[in-house]
C-alpha cells in the first residue's frame, strides 16, 4: 500500500526575536510564537545566523533550573560552553548536539565559549525542549554530549546529500541520542536540485525548520531560510526538493497524551508539581552551581 502524503498545514515565518539572557537572540516558534501541536516537542527557539563582533564580555544565560523535560541544543555556527549542577561541563561546537535530560532537576548555565567570543563570528543555534512522559519526569538527570563526528549519516540517493540523524531512525540508520518516547530529529542536507523523502506515522507531530536554503515540499509549497513548515496529521510521506543547497532541521515525534503544566523552566503535569518544583528549587534540592 502506498503511503499517503503528509500535507503542509502552514508555513510559518520566524516570530519577532527576543533575548534569552544576554547571549541568545531567538525566535520562539512554539509554544509562544505559534500555538501548534508539536508534542513531544514543547519549545523551539531559533537563533538565526548573526555575525557577532569580538568581545571580552561573558554573554549567555546565568544559572537556572529545569525539571520535567530535556533540553536539546544544536549548534550550527559559534560555540557554547555549559556547566551543570551534576558536574557536567563542555563546549558545544558547530555540528555538535547537547541532549540534556533535566528530568528530576538540574541547574545549568550556558555561555558563548570564551575563545569564540574573543574572535567573534557567525552564531546560529537551535534549542528544543523535549517533554518527558509523567513516569520519567522525576528520573535521574543525565546528559548526552554528541559530537558532530558521532552523528549517524544516511546518504541520499543520486548523490543528493545526506541526512545526519541525531535521534530516531532514517532509512534504517539510527542516531546516537537515546530518547524516552519515539521521536526523530535530523539535520537533512540536500543539494540543489536533489530531493529526499521522509516517512513518519500520520499521528506523529511533524515540523521542519529551514536553517539554510530554499525547498519545495510535496511539490506544492516553497519555504525559505528561517521558515517552519508545520505538517498535518493526515499522512505519512513528505518529499522535499532543494531549490538551492539546503539544510533542514527535521522534527517528528509521537505525541505525549498527558496534561501539561508549565511555569518558567519547569514542565510538569499539574500545578501541584509546579509548586513542588519551585519549592524544591528554592530549598536547594536541585543542587548548587556558582
Amino acid at each position, binding site marked *: 500500500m502506498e503511503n499517503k502524503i503528509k500535507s503542509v498545514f502552514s508555513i510559518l515565518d520566524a516570530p519577532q526575536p527576543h533575548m534569552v539572557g544576554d547571549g541568545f537572540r531567538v525566535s520562539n516558534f512554539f509554544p509562544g510564537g505559534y500555538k501548534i501541536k508539536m508534542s513531544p516537542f514543547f519549545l523551539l527557539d531559533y537563533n538565526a545566523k548573526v555575525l557577532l563582533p569580538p568581545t571580552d564580555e561573558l554573554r549567555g544565560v546565568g544559572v537556572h533550573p529545569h525539571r520535567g523535560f530535556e533540553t536539546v541544543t544544536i549548534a550550527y555556527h559559534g560555540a557554547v560552553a555549559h556547566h551543570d549542577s551534576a558536574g557536567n561541563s563542555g563546549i558545544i561546537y558547530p555540528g555538535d548536539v547537547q541532549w540534556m535530560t533535566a528530568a528530576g532537576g538540574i541547574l545549568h548555565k550556558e555561555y558563548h565559549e570564551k575563545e569564540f567570543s574573543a574572535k567573534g563570528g557567525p552564531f546560529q543555534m537551535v534549542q528544543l525542549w523535549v517533554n518527558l512522559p509523567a513516569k520519567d519526569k522525576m528520573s535521574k538527570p543525565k546528559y548526552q554530549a554528541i559530537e558532530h563526528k558521532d552523528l549517524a549519516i544516511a546518504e541520499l540517493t543520486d548523490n543528493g546529500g545526506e541526512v545526519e540523524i541525531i535521534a530516531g531512525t532514517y532509512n534504517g540508520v539510527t542516531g546516537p541520542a537515546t530518547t524516552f518516547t519515539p521521536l526523530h530529529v535530523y539535520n537533512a542536507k540536500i543539494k540543489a536540485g536533489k530531493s529526499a523523502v521522509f516517512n513518519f506515522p500520520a499521528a506523529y507531530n511533524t515540523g521542519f525548520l529551514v536553517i539554510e536554503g530554499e525547498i519545495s515540499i510535496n511539490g506544492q509549497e516553497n519555504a525559505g531560510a528561517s521558515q517552519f513548515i508545520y505538517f498535518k496529521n493526515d499522512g505519512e510521506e513528505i518529499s522535499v526538493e532543494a531549490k538551492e543547497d539546503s539544510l533542514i532541521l527535521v522534527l517528528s515525534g509521537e505525541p505525549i497524551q498527558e496534561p501539561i503544566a508549565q*511555569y*518558567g523552566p519547569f514542565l510538569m503535569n499539574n500545578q501541584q508539581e509546579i509548586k513542588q518544583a519551585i*519549592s524544591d528549587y528554592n530549598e536547594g534540592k536541585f*543542587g*548548587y552551581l556558582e
Partner: protein
Amino acid sequence: MPFINQFKAYLQQKIALTDEQFELISGGITVKTFAKNQVILSPGETSIKTYFVVEGLMRSYSMDSKGKIHIIQFAPEHWLLSERNSFFNQPSDFYIDTTEPVTALVIPRNFFMEASVHVPCIQDLNITMLNNSIRFMQKRINMLLSATAEERYLDFIKLYPNLTLRVPQWMIASYLGITPESLSRVRKDLAHKHFNK
C-alpha cells in the same frame, strides 16, 4: 476575564460582595500597562494611586547616597502597592518601578471610603488589610534586626515563592538586607543539606 474581574475576585475572597455591588463601586478603577524598567514614582514626587498588579512585577525601593538600592517591597500578581507619604500630601521617599512588563489596576485614593457608602463591610476590610500590612511590616523589621541570612531567605521563599525565578539574586539580597555573597552562601548551604535527599 477582564482585568478588573481579578480585583473583584480578590475582594470576593475576603468579603461578601455581589457582582452588582462591585459594579457600583469600581467606576473609578482604571487599567494601566507599563513597560519593563519603567519608573512610575520617584522620590520627591507624590502619587495617591494604589496599584493592584494583574500581571508582571513591581517593586518599591530607596536609593542611598552611594547609589545602592534597598528594596522595600515586591508586588507580583494580586499584590497591592502604594507609597504612603503621598497620602499625607508629603513627597515620596521611594521609587516605584517595574521589574517586568506590568498590567495593573489603578485604584483611586478614596476607593475604600467611597465604596463603604454602598458596601459598609468594605470599611472593615480596609481596616483588616491595613492591620495586616502593619503586621507584615512589624515582622519584616524584626527579621531585618534579628534574623540570620538563612532565616530571612526561608521566610522570603514562603512569601514570594516564584520570585527566585523572576529577579536576579542581587535584588533578593537587597530585599533581605544581606550581601549577594551571603545569599549565595545560604543557597549553597541549603543545597548541601537538601541535594539528593
